[in-house]
């Protein structure tokens, strides 16, 4: 196994050297080949872990890092599989998608290398168990994600979003660095086991504090509210396959981190459970509520990532409560729901981003209100987007329902028997999850039907290029898995029961619980299949009856008005108008409009700009204050090289002098004391 993992890393390095030398035509193929080999290696490692042999070995490391242990347990293996699948489909889709940029040779090779590096480091993050090595790999991951996001760096918006991402991911690294240093100072080791030993020795308040430090770091990456502000900016800026991969798996590495820390830390899990559950319900609701009012298709999907991270977080919170109350079914349902939803979300969200990438590729616009009727030109993309939408709303017979069901049933089960406050908390969480489901439905009926159905709104269908079959082929495997999880969920339950068992501690999860819920899930799978059968049956009856009757085609019924134009259609904004009015007090929505007045009316005009209040309070206002404060010091930046050398000199002198002065100061105090 050690050699496989080393070979895995070497392939990335070799590819990084070779890729710039290749011709454009071969770059894509080379990248896809390299990724495929890497995915094969990673899958062999994780499958062998699942079949029984955990991988554990150690590099000697250096004086600073200490030994670098590599451990691949069930949790790592699960995440490796999830990440690998999305990166593989992303690479195949990306090869098609990047054809439109084939004249930017150098940029393409940089992009391909960064893509490979991002994949490699994500896998390494899952297996490295030394704090410092972890941070280094994490940093490479953050930088390479930054490079793949800013592919279109000539656009100002893209670069701005990229820099925003870069800064926020470094705040995340700052939190992680501080937490690892905290443990290192107290225990003298960077090994992850140090976290366990340290947290079991200190009072509970301190260990909860340590957890919260780690949580903040990982939450920025995962996009929990209020740390989500980079997400809706970065996703629309990146090319489609990168958005898919980023939303599908890169943000999931934050979830991995949280799950890993929960596995390591010894603390009060009930308090942590409450904390995660509440923050997740808020994230879920906030994400989806803002998603509905977005006008950009990719931005809408990005806000949905926040929502789904919330749902995963609810599962994690439930699981933590399960550990805290030593309630095995709850551990199983909570972490099971979270782990399965991680996979599910990576599937349907990458599908949605890839299909919206196709929309951008053929239409060159992502503004929902100017699209319409695309199902005529892009039929396959439309159907795939529909499947993704149904799955993300958590509707049967698709995969989203399965993981949401596990979380639901966990909440309903724990509503009794765990005390008053848990009952109320669960009611709150159920309410949250139900509202998330309902709101997601508004959001995706809007996104799907305004973009793909009806008649074109601003961009006529003649401007749209014809869909190439090859641009959707990489997406079929994703749909296959979405359906398999929806129809045969018990298959996956056996796999995730292994990582879940790690959370149960010394006592293994009762096999009865697993078989019990396995049965329930296979029943759901069966009913999902019956639902599909019913639909087909009704449709066949309809077809056979309609054969004998007269079918005709005419204008849409307009109450006797027979000159319908696409301008009278409902738009995305009008579809959500009532909703927007309901939530207006919570969100900041800037609205500009001029009414059509007079006998010869002027041009009417109406626009809304949704704005995130948390972003305003947490990012924009403090930044404004800092900028105002720092503007007092602009005289320092005078463009004079001599002055800059002077600053450098002063800085070095201070560095040397301060310890000296400090020592003298101590001496003085000592002297005064003696007096």
């Amino acid at each position, binding site marked *: 196994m050690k050699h496989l993992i080393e070979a895995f890393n070497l392939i990335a390095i070799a590819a990084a050297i070779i890729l710039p030398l290749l011709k454009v035509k071969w770059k894509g193929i080379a990248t896809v080949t390299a990724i495929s080999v890497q995915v094969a290696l990673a899958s062999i490692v994780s499958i062998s872990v699942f079949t029984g042999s955990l991988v554990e070995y150690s590099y000697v490391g250096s004086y600073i890092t200490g030994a670098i242990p590599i451990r691949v347990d069930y949790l790592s293996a699960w995440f490796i599989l999830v990440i690998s699948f999305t990166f593989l489909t992303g690479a195949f889709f990306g090869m098609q998608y990047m054809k439109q940029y084939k004249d930017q040779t150098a940029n393409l090779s940089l992009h391909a290398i960064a893509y490979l590096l991002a994949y490699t480091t994500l896998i390494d993050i899952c297996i490295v168990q030394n704090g410092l090595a972890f941070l280094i790999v994490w940093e490479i991951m953050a930088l390479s994600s930054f490079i793949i996001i800013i592919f279109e760096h000539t656009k100002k918006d893209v670069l701005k979003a990229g820099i925003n991402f870069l800064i926020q991911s470094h705040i995340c690294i700052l939190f992680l660095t501080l937490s690892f240093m905290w443990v290192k100072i107290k225990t003298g080791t960077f090994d992850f086991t140090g976290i366990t030993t340290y947290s079991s020795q200190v009072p509970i308040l301190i260990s909860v504090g340590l957890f919260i430090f780690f949580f903040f770091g990982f939450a920025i990456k995962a996009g929990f509210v209020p740390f989500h502000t980079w997400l809706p900016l970065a996703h629309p800026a990146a090319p489609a396959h990168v958005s898919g991969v980023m939303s599908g798996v890169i943000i999931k590495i934050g979830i991995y981190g949280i799950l890993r820390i929960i596995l390591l830390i010894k603390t009060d899990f009930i308090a942590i459970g409450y904390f995660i559950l509440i923050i997740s319900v808020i994230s879920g609701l906030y994400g989806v509520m803002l998603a509905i009012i977005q006008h950009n298709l990719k931005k809408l999907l990005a806000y949905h990532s926040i929502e789904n991270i919330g749902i995963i977080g609810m599962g994690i919170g439930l699981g933590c409560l399960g550990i805290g109350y030593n309630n095995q079914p709850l551990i199983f349902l909570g972490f099971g729901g979270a782990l399965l939803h991680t996979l599910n979300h990576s599937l349907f969200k990458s599908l949605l981003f890839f299909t919206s990438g196709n929309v951008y590729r053929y239409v060159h616009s992502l503004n929902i209100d100017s699209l319409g009727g695309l199902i005529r030109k892009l039929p396959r993309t439309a159907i795939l987007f529909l499947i993704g939408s149904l799955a993300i709303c*958590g509707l049967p017979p698709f995969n989203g329902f399965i993981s949401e069901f596990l979380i639901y049933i966990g909440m309903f089960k724990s509503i009794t028997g765990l005390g008053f406050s848990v009952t109320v908390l669960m009611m709150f969480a159920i309410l949250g999850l139900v509202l998330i489901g309902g709101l997601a439905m508004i959001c995706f009926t809007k996104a799907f039907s305004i973009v793909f159905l009806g008649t074109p709104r601003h961009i006529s269908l003649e401007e749209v290029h014809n869909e190439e079959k090859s641009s959707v082929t990489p997406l079929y495997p994703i749909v296959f898995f979405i359906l398999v999880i929806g129809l045969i969920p018990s298959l996956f339950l056996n796999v995730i029961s292994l990582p879940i068992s790690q959370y149960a501690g010394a006592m293994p999860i009762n096999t009865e619980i697993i078989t019990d819920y396995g049965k329930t899930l296979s029943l759901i799978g069966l009913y999902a299949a019956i639902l599909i059968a019913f639909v087909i049956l009704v449709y066949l009856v309809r077809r056979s009856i309609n054969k004998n009757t007269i079918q005709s085609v005419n204008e849409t*019924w307009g109450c006797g008005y027979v000159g*319908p134009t696409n301008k009278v259609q409902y738009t995305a904004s009008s579809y959500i108008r009532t909703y927007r009015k309901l939530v207006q007090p919570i969100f900041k929505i800037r609205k500009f409009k001029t009414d059509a007045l007079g006998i010869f009316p002027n041009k009417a005009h109406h626009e809304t700009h949704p704005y995130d209040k948390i972003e305003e309070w947490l990012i924009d206002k403090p930044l404004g204050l800092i900028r105002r404060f720092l503007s007092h010091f602009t005289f320092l930046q005078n463009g004079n090289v001599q002055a800059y050398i002077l600053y450098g000199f002063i800085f070095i002198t201070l560095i040397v002098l301060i310890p000296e002065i400090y020592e003298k100061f101590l001496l003085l105090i000592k002297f005064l004391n003696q007096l």
Partner: protein
Amino acid sequence: MISLLLIIVASLFFTGIIIRTKSIASGRKGPGVFQPMKDIFRLFRKGAVYSKTTSIIFQIAPSFYFASILMAILAVPLGNYPGLISFQGDFILFAYLLAFGKFFMIISALDTGSSFEGMGASRESLFSMLAEPAFFIVMGSFALLTGQTSFHAIFSTLHYGSNISYMLGILATFVFGIIALIENSRMPIDDPKTHLELTMIHEVMILDNSGFDLGLILHATNLKFAMYGAIISNFFIGDLPLMYTIPIFLAVQVGFAIAIGIFESFIARFRMGHNPQFVFILTSVALLIFFGVLLLLQRFV
């Protein structure tokens, strides 16, 4: 199985009774109880006109809608007899199946490119989203009360001991009754009997459907009514033997239909802007049930 048959039987006359009640209340002779069913059968035999704008989605959506409701009905039990679908958490599947059908109706309405239907779709999605929490809170409260998590187990262990629990039963009946009205877009949310374009939600969404599709959608509405009637009747059945449950079931269905008929005869439709508030009332009543259960179990600390 027995509940499925009974619901199908009840769906045959449910809307007929509502219409009959309304006509008697307004002093008209009115059509027979089975007239709506006859209309539906007539529609089944008719040809259809499709809009130029529509795509495959418009063609398949009614089948999806009808199948999802049939599937949801399978989950409804009758007293001691579980539905064909019965497992822990089956009511979650029930709610999501209904949502599945609704999703397709909404996108098929938007497929026509008509502003009327877009308006209806917009309201349908919003109101059903607002009504959904009430269903889950009621089910959660009864799960808390009985310690069970499936329709059948909850209803068959629901015993009416004290006065508060009777109150809970009545409140739950109220909540489910109103949910049925919202889901089927009846008064006071919407008036299905006004001229088509003036109807605001459900009827306006299906302006462009005709022939077999329209028949399917109309009968799906009947089934939905009977389904909610069946759930309500379950609050009164408990674990009685079959010879009592069937008459109770039919009596509840007829009573529910007459109640809707009388209600609709004497009330006007709300202004659309007031509807969200009305739907929110439902959630607060459901929360009342939750607190009632907590009171009953003496779980307040």
